[in-house]
């Protein structure tokens, strides 16, 4: 069994080497995740880049429409995207939706997280967390449909408001920005609540008590003690909400009207409705601009808000 013994030795040797070598450990731990990222993030990125430069396109070859590679980049799609006033409307609308959603989720989450972390006992806390997660067992689209049903002019909310005499006719918010924003704040709230709650949980109650003892008003305590301590959670939550909210397209399609046309919906329409080759090229150029926008806004955010990011 000389061979078997050999392999045992080498396996032990390998484990030993792994223990000693940081580099090997790094490769072993990182490679599965990196592989997934490379396949599912970088390759679409590279394809989008090629589409947006018109280098990977469809043309008719021998009577059949085929994908072809063209080695000359064209900036036509970028220039038509960036010089069109109307596409910039889409960009601004996305920024508007994402900012309001971030602010809205923060305003709703902060007091809730504060109360949960500092005023609830362990058991109640767990129940509260369970209740927060509960809606996420239901499919996202169904939750959006539910909101659509609730705010529909024939829906329960309108019925209630009309029957108690607040309104004369059903609500007219479906198909407007208000409906989009309500739905977005609701859908993204958990991504703000959890990181803020996570940091709040570790907040040492004695700091707050100390502030009170030293004569600080509740407002001052909030501004000078609580918020600075919870800031990493707020930053993490804001990024988790802002970035996906910038690309949101399903909610505007489902509850927004014709005026609700953020960049996510533009990209979606270009890919799904217009399709290759033109829609892919134009949609990819838009997607690239979107990525740059995200990177720049994230950078600016760190630059001016600063601080470390702590996810939960």
């Amino acid at each position: 069994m000389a061979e078997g013994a050999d392999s045992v030795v080498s396996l032990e040797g390998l484990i030993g080497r792994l223990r000693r070598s940081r580099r090997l450990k790094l490769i072993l731990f990182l490679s599965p995740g990196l592989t997934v990222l490379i396949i599912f993030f970088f390759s679409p990125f590279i394809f989008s880049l090629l589409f947006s430069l018109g280098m990977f396109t469809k043309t008719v070859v021998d009577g059949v429409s085929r994908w072809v590679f063209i080695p000359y980049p064209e900036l036509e799609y970028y220039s038509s995207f960036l010089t069109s006033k109307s596409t910039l409307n889409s960009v601004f609308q996305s920024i508007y939706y994402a900012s309001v959603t971030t602010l809205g989720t923060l305003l709703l989450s902060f007091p809730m997280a504060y109360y949960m972390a500092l005023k609830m006992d362990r058991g109640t806390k767990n129940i509260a967390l369970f209740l927060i997660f509960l809606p996420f067992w239901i499919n996202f689209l169904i939750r959006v449909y539910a909101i659509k049903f609730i705010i529909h002019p024939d829906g329960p909310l309108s019925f209630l408001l009309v029957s108690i005499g607040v309104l004369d006719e059903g609500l007219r918010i479906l198909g407007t920005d208000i409906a989009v924003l309500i739905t977005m704040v609701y859908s993204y709230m958990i991504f703000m609540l959890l990181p803020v709650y996570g940091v709040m949980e570790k907040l040492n109650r004695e700091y707050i008590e100390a502030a009170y003892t030293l004569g600080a008003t509740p407002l001052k305590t909030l501004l000078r003690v609580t918020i600075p301590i919870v800031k990493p959670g707020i930053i993490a939550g804001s990024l988790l909400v802002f970035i996906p909210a910038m690309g949101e397209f399903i909610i505007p399609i489902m509850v927004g009207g014709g005026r609700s046309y953020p960049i996510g919906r533009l990209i979606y329409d270009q890919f799904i409705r217009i399709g290759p080759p033109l829609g892919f090229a134009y949609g990819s150029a838009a997607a690239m601009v979107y990525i740059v926008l995200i990177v720049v806004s994230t950078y600016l955010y760190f630059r001016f808000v600063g601080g470390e990011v702590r996810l939960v």
Partner: protein
Amino acid sequence: MSSRRDFLRVAVAGVAGLALGGVAGYYARQDEVDRLKGKVEELLGRVGIELEEDFNLFNWTWYANLELIEEWASENNINLQIDHYESNDELVSELELGARQYDVVVPSASYIPTLIERGILQPIDLDKIPNADNIPESFMGREWDPDNEYTLIYSYGTTAIAYNEEKLDEEITSWGDIFDVENPDSIIRRHSGRVTMLPESIEVMDAAAIYLGYPIDTTDENQLEDIANLLIAQKDHLYGYVGTEEYMEELPRGSLFYISQSWNGDIAGVIWDSSEREVKMSILNPHVKYVIPEEGAVAWFDNFAIPANAENIENAHAFINWFLDPVISAIHTMTVKYPFPAGIKYVPEIIRNDQTIFIPESLYDKLYWTILTPELESLWQQYWQRVQTA
């Protein structure tokens, strides 16, 4: 059908066994065996048993009796997959991408020359579709496919305006009622936010062109500019760009919106008590109206076609042939209230006389249609893009 297939297999084995001389030292010659095999092959072909396992249909929303199609599939032991779209834009994009494979699709005539030119469709073998004889002469050999090499008529209709008359004090008669946004007394201004347009670029732009009195295949940039500006101005007073499923649900209630650019058969499906799974024959929503405006409207012709990347070609032909059976076509018409020409003679008179379903001949000279070239399409898409993002 598996039992019948097995039965035939056994029968083939029996015949072949005989031929190969299971009996008393008789050995058949090779050519004799081949002849017999051919005979059996022919037999299988005739009873339509050589079908593939899968069949993928990509059709418009609300456009066939789904129950009946499911029955056809299960009877023939076929794995059926039906996906839906709500605009030609979606269909063309999906076909051009080719990521999903479909065996039968139903594009509108105006898109067909482009699809053929781009090699996205494959020829239909009319020998495998004897029921094509049931199609009235007037629907064969039309300008978009003169020899019916790639397509056969599926259904046809118009794009015009539907509204819930309980919500309006007057009748809608003109495209101006939903386009004249400059005039504060126009219907669209008085019912701002209660009007929808279709989510299909060409349909919306055609309607604006007809209202402005421009040809619906204009390439004149000034005219296209006018069309885009009109649509952008109209957008302020729209609920949105809404497809079949949503307007069929909302129009009869009229609480969210009550005036919709729409397809005639969808509205017939609202007026008549209908379901995609049953034949129902009573009026349910008489207060929903469909009008062809005085300026005219677009007529369209949807067609069966087989994509070039289809994998289940036998099934595709078998399906089309089955659908074109006059009785089957008539059942589909009685279900979703779109006219399927092959079955017209079996459709009850009460449906045949419905002017929402069957366009009255007196309106024929008010209907326009066009054939899109790829150039025209990409030019129009640029303007449509501007409208959407405005």
